[in-house]
Each structure stands twice: as C-alpha cells, then as structure tokens.
C-alpha cells in the first residue's frame, strides 16, 4: 500500500466506523470500496490491499467483489460521471441520441474519461426514473427529461464551474469523490436541499386532488379514506 500515513489513518478510522454499522465486519466491504473511491477516484490496487487487510480477506476475494459491481471503477474516474441511460425505454425515447451527442462533444466513448480528467462518459442501465425519460445521472444525481442540448449544457456548466443543479438532488452536483464518500455512508448534510419530488412523481396525486378525490393526509389526521373511493367494479 502506498497511502500516505495520514490518508491511511483516516481510511482506517472511517473503515472502523463503517464496520461498526454491521454485526459482521465483512458487510462493510461495499461501503469501504465506495470509501476508497473517494480517495483514489477508483478502486485501486491500494484500495484492494487495504480492504483485504482490514477485513482479513485475500486480494482475490476483494477484487471478486469490486469487479462484480458496475459502480466500482477500475480506471481513475473523471470528476463527473455522465451516465446516460440507454436501457430500452430511456434509450429509445432519446437516450441514444443524448449519448451520441455527448460522445461526439467530449470525444470519448463508453467508460472513457476526457483528457482533462473532468468527465467520464458511461452508458448506464435503468436508474428507476422511467417517468422522467430520458434520464442522465451526473455522479448519480438525477438530471431528468434530458435532450442532447440540455445534456451538453450540463457539461458546459460543469466545465465552466458554473452552478449546475440536478433536477432532483442537491443544489450543486458534487464531485465523484465527494459522492463516493457519501455512498460510503458519511452524511454530507445535503439531504435538505432539492425538491421533494418532480412533477411526474406527483401527477397521480395532483390529479386525484383535482378530481376531488380524497387527499388522505392533507387533513393531517391521516385517517383512512372511505372504502368507497375504490371502485369495486374493478373486481369483476
């Protein structure tokens, strides 16, 4: 391991905090790998050695886990991962075009990083935001309802250091390393930023209210709506 002594000390301290969350230390491996990405920007040989030593595993056992999960990077990641969803729905609704445009604009292909180390372009699989298609995740923050143009604008803002706010997320996109630390379970204090939900998330609820249906919790009592609200005809 070639970590500087103070880095190693911090890693050990953080790792023991992570292990304390679980009845069995090995459960800490995934968060610890996220943690090492916050230091190295990827799961480096040092990270493998550190996790192996800390959890009394062989290096093979650690890399077995690290190479199984797609969020763990084997090459130094850019400051920002641009993850364009290309699974059927987002891809066909325009994710393909967004990816093509970004690839052309940045001059990199899938899983490649720009020479300035700023951006890693990645084709990602469904990120559970299909009602916001096409979706782009920047460092795993939601950028909903994207177009090729809007995606390029995001890149330009990040490159220029201009404010860049995810659709549903904190006020500013954190860096890959910052997000990796958060994913290791170290609270970054940004939970209270950003909206409660985007428009598609509340479309049904709003429609129900507009139709005069019961807004269950609006009356704060939280009492149940009348069963009549359900149309038993559907049961036929």
């Amino acid at each position: 391991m070639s970590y500087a002594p103070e880095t190693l000390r911090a890693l050990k301290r953080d790792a023991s905090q992570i292990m304390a969350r679980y009845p069995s230390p090995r459960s800490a491996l995934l968060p610890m790998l996220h943690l090492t990405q916050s230091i190295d920007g990827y799961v480096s040989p040092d990270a493998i050695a550190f996790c192996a030593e800390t959890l009394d595993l062989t290096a093979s056992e650690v890399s077995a886990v690290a190479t199984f999960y797609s969020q763990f990077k084997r090459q130094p990641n850019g400051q920002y991962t641009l993850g364009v969803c290309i699974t059927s729905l987002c891809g066909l609704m325009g994710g393909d075009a967004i990816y093509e445009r970004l690839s052309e604009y940045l001059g990199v292909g899938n899983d490649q990083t720009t020479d300035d180390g700023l951006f890693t372009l990645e084709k990602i699989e469904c990120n559970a935001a299909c009602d916001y298609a096409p979706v782009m995740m920047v460092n795993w923050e939601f950028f909903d309802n994207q177009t090729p143009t809007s995606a390029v604008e995001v890149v330009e803002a990040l490159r220029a250091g201009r404010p860049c706010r995810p659709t549903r997320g904190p006020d500013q996109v954190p860096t890959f390393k910052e997000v990796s630390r958060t994913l290791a379970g170290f609270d970054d204090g940004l939970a209270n930023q950003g909206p409660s939900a985007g428009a598609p998330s509340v479309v049904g609820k709003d429609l129900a209210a507009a139709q005069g249906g019961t807004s269950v919790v609006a009356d704060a009592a939280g009492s149940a709506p009348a069963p009549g609200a359900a149309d038993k005809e559907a049961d036929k």
Partner: protein
Amino acid sequence: MTALMPLLTSRWGNPESWTLKAYEATGGYEALAAALKMEPAAIIDTVKDSGLRGRGGAGFPTGVKWSFLPPPDGGPRYLVVNADESEPGTCKDIPLMMADPHSLLEGVIITSFAIGCHHAFIYLRGEVVHVYRRLLNAVREAKQAGLLGNNIKGSGFDLEVTVHTGAGAYICGEETALLDSLEGRRGQPRLKPPFPAVAGLYARPTVVNNVESIASVPWIVKNGADWWKSIGTEKSTGVAIYSLSGHVERPGQYEAPLGITMRELLELAGGVRQGHQLKFWMPGGSSTPMFTPEQLDVPLDYDSVAAAGSMLGTRALQCFDETVCVVRAVSRWMDFYAHESCGKCTPCREGTFWLRSVLRRIEAGGGRPEDMQILQDIPKSIVGRAFCPLGDGAPSALTSSLKFFPEEYARHIELGACPFDHAASYLFEAVTL
C-alpha cells in the same frame, strides 16, 4: 372508472415532505404508536388478514412471509428492506424514499417489532445518492426523536436501522443475492433451501420485503385489515403505485386500487403521445411478457394479469407507440439482461450472451432466416433451467414479441436493415441534433 387513491404517494411533493416534522404533521408515526401497544403476533395477523401481497414483483403475501420465521431462539433475526429498485420500467420506490423516507422507516419499525428484529437493514441501490441522503437523514431524525435506538417510545423495544448502499447490480434485487451482497460478497443468488426465513442474513432468520410493501404496513396497522381488504380485488387487496412511462402524455406515478385497467390509467395520463397509437406495453417491468392494445382492459391485479399471460410484477407500465421498433426494444432489454446476468448459472450467463449477439446482429441487418429458430429455442433453454428468476424473466420480452410481432423480425432479416426511423421515437425534436 376506478378512482385514484393516493396513500403512499399522498405526501409526495409537500414542502419538506422528507422531514420528520412534515411527516408527523401528516399523521406520521401514529401507526407506530398504535403498533407498539399491540402484541407482535397481532400485527402479523393483521398484515396477514389484510391480504397485502409483496410489491416487489412476485406478489407473495407479506404477512405469510413473516409467519415463516421459526420461533425465536434467542439469537438475532433480521428485516431487510429491498430498496434495490432496478427492474427496467420500475420507478416507484425511489420517489417514495426521496419524498417520504419516514413512511418507509415507520413501516420498518412496525415490522421489526412484529417479527422480533432489533437490527433492520435497508438495502438501497447505490446509484441514487440523493435518496440515500434522505434515508440517512430520516434515520438520524428518528433516532434523535427516540423512534429508533433503545426503548423506542418507552415500549422497551430496541431497534437499529442501517441503510446500506449497493454498487450497481440488478441481480441484487433477488432476495438471496441481496443478502450475499449485504454480507459483502458478490451478489449471486443462494441455493434454496434454506430460505431466508430460516437462514438469511448471517445465516439467521430473515424477512426480505420490498419498499412499497413495508411502506404499506403503517396504513394497514392504522386502519385495519378489513379496510385494506375493502380496497382492490379479492385476491389483490389494497392500493398500489402504477408507474406509467414512455409514450404517454403524462408519465408518472398513479396510485390506485389494485385492479385498475391500463385503459383507465392511460386515460388519466392523457393518453398515448399525441398523434400516435399504442403499439405494445409492458405490464410489470421488462421481465414480464409484453401486452398490446388488446389487453388494455385486463384488470391490473396479480391474478388477472397472470391469466392474460403476463405478470403484474412491479406495475411498471412502459408504453411504446408505433414508432418503436420492437426488435430494437427487445435487443436493448437483452443487452440489459446480458449485462446484469450475475454469471452464476450456465443458462442465464450463456443464453443471454447468445441472444444478445443474435438480436444485435438482426437489428444491425445481419440476421439469417435460421436465427428465427434460435430466437424461439434459446429462451426455452433459459426459462426453467436458470438458477434464479432473473434468467426466467430475461427472455420474456423476446418471446412475447415473437408472438405479437413475428413479421417485424422477419422484415429485419429480409431487408438486412432496420425499417424504423429511430428518431421518431424520441421524446424531443430530433432536429435539435
């Protein structure tokens, strides 16, 4: 016409809805107060009586699953919430946890109390960092308010909750793969038996439930099993979140009693994209066989959808209009399954690899007439042979598309090219390119 009935979605979009303050202001943790006064067995009975079925896709009765736990032996038992929402098309748990994490937490506490669990886990997929923040925040708030930790609300009941992030693996939505992942291993499914109820997390009795299932528990506890049963259908009780996406005017989350039809939902969503017609739709995520407009009136409950030849799954209703090339859509889903196959068993690992190769080739214009037989045969070599449900679900879209649109495959092979204008499916003007 079935009316929408927002329960789990009712707080979404409210100001600071994710905070304890906002949650408690809207009746939050009242169910917990009631539950802590009940006998744990009575809670299990209530949930059993309610008929609540798992909202993660399989539809197994939640209360029955809890009752499979062996009698307490003094050792730990665990609740693990499956928050790995990754099935293509499924997008309900993520907004729930972002907007209303305390509703999940309340369900976790009640469920843990019911089953005798003192350390619960929420396994969240790692690719949704803001949801993780909201969950961590909710746990912290709850702890500070005495809703977690020792002697919760003076009940003598202790509970720790750990929110755990995955790191990108669809297979971890399978409950035993999730447990292996939570133990710091590769997320590959375990051999069953033993089932998690007997030997799950750390080889201890474990209940694994979906987010929406657990978030439904406070509603049931507070309002009773009978009330819940009065909603929905006889065998698919209660409300559920329907997620509409794709070529519809107003995609989004529609919470309604189980049994609502796609026709009704489409109407609520303003219909298919203007100027277009529905071509096919997926009722329960990409692992469920597709439907066409013919099935618009099938009640979207567990049994009716099954009877119609598909699965209710996660109610991830993805709609595709006539601009969509079904071969392309299916090929892309196969990319997904090949990418996400864990590699453990031969049929899924090799079968999805083969089908991906053939589908990509056909879509790119390299199809051969004999490929049609391979597309028919290989799914049969995967389904019922694979180790876990991922393999069983992987060829669903392919097989059903061959049933509904065989000529589209033939056309690709005949032309040596894809006959569709892909840009016509985009949700933005292609000219912006």
